[in-house]
């Protein structure tokens, strides 16, 4: 089985972020593809301005959505090269993939969160994070929701 991440950001932006995070998993860009929209993890401004967006197999009020939302999809390819969509899961569906959560669930304080995974920081954002090397990007300021949804 092959495991890959896919994001709608252009490859250069993915690469910049990958380097900052020191990640090495395969990560493709669907920037000029309909892929993210067809598999219901990216939403156009027109979708978000409408009455509802389709996410996690249901109609959500746009206020509950975002221009990008998380998920996981599985595919099978046969010897003729045909590809089949076999599975998708969204929102908290793939939560078991986050082994960290399964460990935390067994700690005395559990996840110790007041909103889903709001305790997670990037490795270079913890107070005791080691100094980043000269070639690492500094943690960026969060954009305003207006900017992100533009």
């Amino acid at each position: 089985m092959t495991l890959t991440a896919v994001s709608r950001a252009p490859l250069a932006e993915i690469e910049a972020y990958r380097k900052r995070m020191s990640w090495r998993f395969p990560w493709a860009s669907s920037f000029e593809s309909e892929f993210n929209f067809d598999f219901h993890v990216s939403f156009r401004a027109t979708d978000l301005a409408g009455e509802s967006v389709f996410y996690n197999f249901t109609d959500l009020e746009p206020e509950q959505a975002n221009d990008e939302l998380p998920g996981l999809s599985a595919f099978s390819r046969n010897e003729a090269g045909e590809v089949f969509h076999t599975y998708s899961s969204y929102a908290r569906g793939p939560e078991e993939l986050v082994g960290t959560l399964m460990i935390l669930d067994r700690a005395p304080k559990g996840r110790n969160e007041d909103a889903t995974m709001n305790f997670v920081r990037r490795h270079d954002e913890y107070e005791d994070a080691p100094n980043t090397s000269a070639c690492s990007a500094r943690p960026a300021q969060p954009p305003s929701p207006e900017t992100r949804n533009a």
Partner: protein
Amino acid sequence: MEPHQIVSREEWLVARRRLLAREKEATHLRDAINAERLALPWVKVEKTYRFDTLEGPKTLAQLFGPRSQLIVYHFMLGPGWAAGCPAAPSWPITWMAPCRIWSTMM
């Protein structure tokens, strides 16, 4: 943290066995759900999707590499986010943890 009752080992064992029964129910339910997941019908992908990768442009079929199965993690990183991924609690960072694990796996 909520204050907890402090009990003898014997009393603890009673409570723990009660929880174990529930944990076993969850394990068996997960097994059953996994079997139902495998039994789901499939849908043929008719469009040719193109992706940019470090190895050049690839179709969805090419993302499989030499293998017959592909899992795509839909990582929330939209255009323009790279310079400004939300640092505050938000969904995009939800998936950092699995990816940190994957990066050690792969």
